[in-house]
């Protein structure tokens, strides 16, 4: 057995172990910590499977943003934790759920292991046509050119999710500042980090978005890092989350899907199909869409984590 195979088996066992530990945890906070560790281990699994773009997204979203979201939820639920534990489902129901999950996992594993060798794949077709988009990264060309419709719809779904979160605001603070006003010692460690890290983070985020054209990366990963830097500054109390009724905020939120739709309609008029890029302008058009999308993703993810409005806009 090679060292690589031993490493992968150890990684798989570790992932399963952390998953079981997360489910068996008694406190919500402990389960969230296990979930973050699970996300980071999954990112390693993706790297071993040669899917580096997915690994970047998993580390950023699964390990990072989801972790923050769940930690916030765990903090809000702390007062009701004892009552919730009393209403937990009985042992038979839990064993039934475990058996059902194990059967689904076994069915999925059988499905993957019984695939013919070589497995049916569109990768050669993508590799043959990547040159037409002017990009070097086949994942980005699939996301932004061959399946651009799916990416457009995903961004609109993100907006719908944000509207869903905003709809949780009580009537009297409708359109106000999301989340509580965070306070931190302005001379303290958190404020220091929030002053030192965002410049580095912004450069890294823009670099990851820009290099997604030819290397693993892309608009989503870059936007997530920018959102994380914005959230850090908000959590350190150095700035406040803007009221969600501000016009500039809403314009930035729709900028990504709007530019995407505009380019798609232009393709309909000039190229004959929705989202058709003229070959000479494919890369500039894709980059324009990605710039707008990175901004929109950054602001959307930041606002998703900031939460529903809790303070009225006047303050």
């Amino acid at each position, binding site marked *: 057995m090679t060292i690589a195979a031993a490493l992968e088996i150890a990684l798989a066992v570790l992932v399963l172990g952390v998953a079981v530990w997360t489910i068996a945890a008694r406190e919500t906070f402990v389960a969230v910590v296990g979930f973050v560790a699970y996300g980071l281990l999954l990112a390693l699994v993706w790297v071993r499977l040669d899917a580096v773009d997915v690994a970047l997204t998993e580390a950023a979203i699964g390990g990072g943003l989801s972790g923050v979201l769940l930690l916030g939820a765990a903090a809000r639920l702390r007062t009701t934790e004892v009552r919730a534990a009393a209403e937990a489902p009985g042992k038979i129901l839990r064993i039934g759920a475990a058996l059902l999950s194990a059967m689904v996992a076994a069915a999925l594993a059988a499905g993957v292991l019984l695939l013919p060798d070589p497995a049916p794949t569109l990768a050669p077709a993508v590799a043959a046509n990547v040159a037409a988009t002017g990009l070097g990264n086949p994942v980005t060309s699939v996301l932004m050119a061959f399946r651009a419709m799916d990416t457009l719809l995903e961004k609109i779904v993100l907006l719908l999710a944000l509207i869903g979160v905003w709809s949780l605001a009580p009537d009297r603070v409708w359109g106000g500042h999301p989340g509580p006003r965070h306070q931190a010692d302005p001379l303290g*460690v*958190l404020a*220091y980090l929030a002053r*030192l*890290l965002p410049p*580095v983070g912004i450069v890294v985020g823009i670099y990851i978005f820009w290099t997604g054209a030819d290397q693993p990366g892309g608009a989503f990963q870059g936007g997530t890092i920018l959102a994380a830097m914005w959230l850090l500054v908000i959590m350190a109390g150095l700035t406040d989350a803007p009221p969600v009724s501000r016009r500039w905020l809403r314009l930035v939120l729709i900028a990504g899907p709007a530019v995407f739709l505009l380019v798609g309609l232009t393709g309909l008029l000039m190229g004959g199909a929705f989202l058709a890029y003229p070959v000479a302008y494919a890369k500039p058009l894709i980059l324009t869409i990605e710039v707008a999308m990175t901004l929109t993703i950054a602001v959307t993810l930041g606002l998703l984590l900031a939460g529903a409005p809790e303070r009225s806009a006047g303050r």
Partner: protein
Amino acid sequence: MSVALDIVTIAAISAGALFFLAGTVGLLRFPDPLTRLHALTKADNLGLGLVVLGLLPQAGSLRDGLKLVCVWLLVLLAGATVSQLIARAALASEASDQRGEFL
């Protein structure tokens, strides 16, 4: 020359792994949060630093080497900040425990 570089890599990464092991054992065995944080910083600073030092000879170019060092510096920054915040929270919860208050 490459054999010497490989030996340096193996030695440095093994030493780094040793510090990670020491930090993890400390995390599991030390009695309270402050001492556990103390053990963790060994893994962060020295463990990762030695691993990065060991990977530098294997880096393809100067840029890749600088990126590795940047990763180490960012982990140092994050680790130092988070250790301070956890320590202050642990001290605060200890103080309120001693006063007999509920958290």
